[in-house]
């Protein structure tokens, strides 16, 4: 399971970085979203990957760590707010600057 998880994170991050470097607002927003998915999964994985474990201390030797889940929840909420903001900003940039390049102007060829 760990290997699959790691590969998933790697693919998500790689796609995110690739999209981020396209330097057009829509791919960039998609790229940031993919990266934040990867980061959320990473945080989740930091509580160790296991299934069917009780979230209560003392019942068994092993337990599911609740802290990363709380952290992920916080990170997801913040991530949503930030994505919403950056989408609105991109639309506004498109309206005001008339370009979807992140520099606000078309690159010189």
């Amino acid at each position: 399971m760990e290997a699959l998880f790691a590969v998933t994170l790697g693919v998500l991050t790689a796609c995110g970085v690739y999209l981020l470097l396209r330097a057009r607002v829509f791919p960039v927003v998609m790229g940031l979203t993919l990266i934040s998915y990867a980061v959320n999964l990473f945080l989740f994985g930091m509580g160790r990957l296991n299934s069917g474990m009780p979230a209560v201390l003392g019942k068994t030797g092993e337990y599911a760590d609740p802290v990363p889940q709380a952290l992920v929840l916080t990170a997801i909420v913040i991530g949503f707010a930030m994505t919403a903001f950056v989408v609105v900003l991109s639309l506004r940039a498109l309206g005001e600057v008339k370009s979807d390049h992140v520099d606000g102007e078309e690159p010189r060829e």
Partner: protein
Amino acid sequence: MKHALILPILLPMFTGALLLAAARMPLGLRRGVSLGATWLLLPLSILLLAQASDGQLRLYALGGWQPPFGIVLLLDRLSALMLLVTAVLAGFVALYACRGDDERGSDFHALLQFQLMGINGAFLTGDLFNLFVFFEILLIASYCLLLHGGGAQRVRAGMHYVLLNLLGSSFFLLGVGTLYGLTGTLNMADLALRIGQAAPSETPLLAAAGFLLLVVFALKAAVLPLYFWLPRAYASATAPVAALFAIMTKVGLYAILRVFTLLYGSEAGELANLARDWLWPLALLTVIGGALGALGARTLQMLLGYLMILSVGTLLAGIALGSPASIAALLYYLIHSTWISAGLFLLADLIARQRGEQAGALTAGPALQQPLLLGGMFFVGAIAIAGLPPFSGFIGKLLLLRAAPMGYPTLLLWTVLLTGGLCALVALSRAGSTLFWRASGQPSVTVEHDPLRLIASSGLLLGAPLLVLAGGPLQAYLQATAEQLLDLAPYLRIVGGGA
């Protein structure tokens, strides 16, 4: 008075929420509420400073959960000092904004309050994930403030700022996640303990997490390879926002100072003083970058933006040296550079208003309406920020230069800092002579004289002589702050039995 510790976070939070809910209230009333709440932070932070100056660490366990299990707020001399610096700055910024800049868009005052909540929270928290949350609060408020007033120029500069910081947040989470995965805690004091006891097999990962955090904080603080967003963003923001942002780079520096003295400080075993070797060249290169940028700047606001970078480099050199004397010196310089550059940003706006179309462009233009008054203020501010006697910049730089140990660091630091100061001086005198002396003819526009705007700007600039006059007691406090920061034993006792 136990609860006074959390008030610098709660007060702006509730004021901001009230201002959002009551957005239909008359503007005058909203201004009054916002101004009142902002100035109330000043007595509050003085009270906290008085509490902290006895050298005890004060903890506030949220919900009564004792560390390391719950989130704690931590008040020491450093955080009390940062709160005070913020409160003074915010008071004058709010005053300036009330004279018209808050009408350019909606909800300026609510955003200002949320920004203050994030900044105060970042200074007070003793929990790494909580630091992330407060960073996000201050960032999202700063995105909105930066874009406040709209316009293509702001959107263009804001885009870089927003995207870079969103990526920075991901890095922050990766760093925090790695630390949690390895140590199982997020409390800074507990983290410091566990990093010190870490098994040798874990140290490379812990170091990687530390460097990830360094990248994030360096982005916020605008250290060399990561500062290119700053000048344009600051130059395009409205004047009160640019002035308020003078504290934003300092939040990043504060985080570097906190994390790399406590978590990766002297008690971190193999990882002790992890970042020091990196901070040193970065600091000097940042000074050089800021100085070159200042020489090439074409508008007054850009020039001030690059001077901000120059001061970030200077402050970082203080962190890199890492002795009590250098940390005390850097804190002195931090107070000075926050207030003076904020005052200069406000002054630049006053000057730009009287130049009509030319605004802040450094080209010959029409005469100003109040050349003597504004020129005098610019002169004081320029001398202070360039680091010439008799004002605070000189004392700050002198303390820092004296704190450098003998040998090659001294040689490098003296050369770079003094050359940087010279470049700043050249850039400022060129700007000043263009603005005030190469002016011809009659004033092109008539602007109403606004004494309150002048008071806001000169109030901050007045820090230059006041910091010199109060130099003795201030220096004693800062020396004690630096010693408290470097003596980790009380911090480590937080976990398992209170401070």
